[in-house]
């Protein structure tokens, strides 16, 4: 094979590669759009009246996940199934965002941590690598860490809205999460960096709980079963 023939062959491989990336990028953009819409919708819970109709917001968000599922479905068809990690970088960010959104919805509904399998099911993808387009464990954990900082914010805002019991529940939840993350041996990568931020969320929530307890507001909350002032 002559040198120029070899380079012509290589060039066509590279062009094909670029076309795939182009298509993936388009799909990912659509996904990002949906994710943004959902985020805007869920941000409503931070405002006073929003806290009351959490179930309705979750309902709406769940509808959006239907769009996400079809979009992910079409993303899957854009590249060979065994080359997931080759193009991983393209959808990594949006997938983490979607994990966070799913985890947030599940938390608002049931106040529990969504499992990796459940997220995969909500997004319409697989939990195991063997079965095709899957949810990478690091992406899942990153999404959960985003949830933690969102809940720290929610704790503050629910006190402002007069809901004194929620911060206590969030505190238990975050503490459990923190203990879970401390079990992991993380490498010095982006996930480690985000994990390092978790303790500030823990601290923030602890401060809120402290403020409530020295004013006796936490007792009022448990007595009144949470809610109106």
């Amino acid at each position, binding site marked *: 094979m*002559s*040198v*120029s023939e*070899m*380079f*012509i062959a*290589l*060039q066509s*491989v*590279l*062009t094909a*590669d*670029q076309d795939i990336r182009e298509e993936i990028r388009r799909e990912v953009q659509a996904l990002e759009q949906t994710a943004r819409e959902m985020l805007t919708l869920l941000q409503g819970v931070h405002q006073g009246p929003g806290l009351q109709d959490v179930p309705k917001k979750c309902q709406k968000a769940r509808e959006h996940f239907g769009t996400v599922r079809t979009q992910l479905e079409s993303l899957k068809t854009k590249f060979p199934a*065994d*080359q*997931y*990690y*080759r193009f*991983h970088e393209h959808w990594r960010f949006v997938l983490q965002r979607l994990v966070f959104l799913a985890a947030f919805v599940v938390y608002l509904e049931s106040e*529990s*941590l969504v*499992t*990796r399998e459940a997220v995969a099911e909500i997004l319409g993808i697989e939990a195991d*690598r063997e079965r095709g387009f899957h949810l990478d*464990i*690091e992406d899942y*954990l990153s999404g959960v860490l985003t949830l933690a900082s969102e809940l720290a914010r929610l704790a503050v805002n629910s006190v402002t809205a007069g809901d004194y019991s929620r911060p206590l529940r969030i505190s*238990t939840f975050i*503490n*459990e*999460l*923190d*203990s*879970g*993350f401390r*079990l*992991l*041996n*993380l*490498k*010095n990568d982006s996930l480690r960096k985000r994990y*390092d931020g978790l*303790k500030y969320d823990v*601290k923030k929530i*602890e401060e809120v709980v402290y403020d409530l307890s020295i004013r006796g507001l936490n007792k009022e909350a448990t007595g009144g079963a949470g809610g109106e002032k």
Partner: protein
Amino acid sequence: MSGKEGSGGFRKRKHDNFPHGQRREEKENVNPSSAVMVSFKSFQLELDTRHDKYERLVKLSRDITIESKRTIFLLHRFISAPNGGEILNESEVKLDGVRRKIKQVAQELIGEDMYQFHRAISPGLQEYLQRSQDFSTSNSHDKQPHTCSLKVTPVDYLLGVADLTGELMRLCISSVGNGDIDTPFELSQFLRQIYDGFTFIGNTGPYEVSKKLYTLKQSLAKVENACYTLKVRGSEIPKHMLADVFSTKTELIDQEEGLS
């Protein structure tokens, strides 16, 4: 565990931000057999396995790089003197060692997505390609893409070829020093072909490839200048003086490049 201990100093300091009493109390609150804890234990296992594998691959890649570099140095000793065959044989032995390492890499990757661990092995692979091609060029001036159970990505291949041109440039200069006047011309021909190939790919390739293009241009210029000098001065200077003339000329080129 080792990962955590490695950066222990840093982490410890950060954790001291928390009052100790509070920490302890918090630990009691958490039930070690709760669903969250159980699932995180399985995450721990999964991440550890993955990191271990990554580290093993990095180590293998390092070994491949070192062995390949040594083989390149060995091949630079190749002059068309009688010991040429010996050197080729010796490098063939080294090559086999590297291939065994690569086979280990391939075994580590069985059942894995190759691209997931790509970053770990990429440098070693490139070095290996460079070396194995250097080898075949010295042999027959004909490149043979290597086939082994591990798949070489086109980009790795391209980057390896780009490194190869640097080695060829060295080979060219040193062969003039040894009084060999034919090799530089053959090499400049070959380098020009590769350069044309790279310009043909141009911007379609990834970022690293276009970066290499600049160095490639420099190597090509050096070799072409060498050929030029040989042609111009070769006709007027007696053969036994050629080496002297040439070495002063290359120094000049080096200085110029140092300035720019």
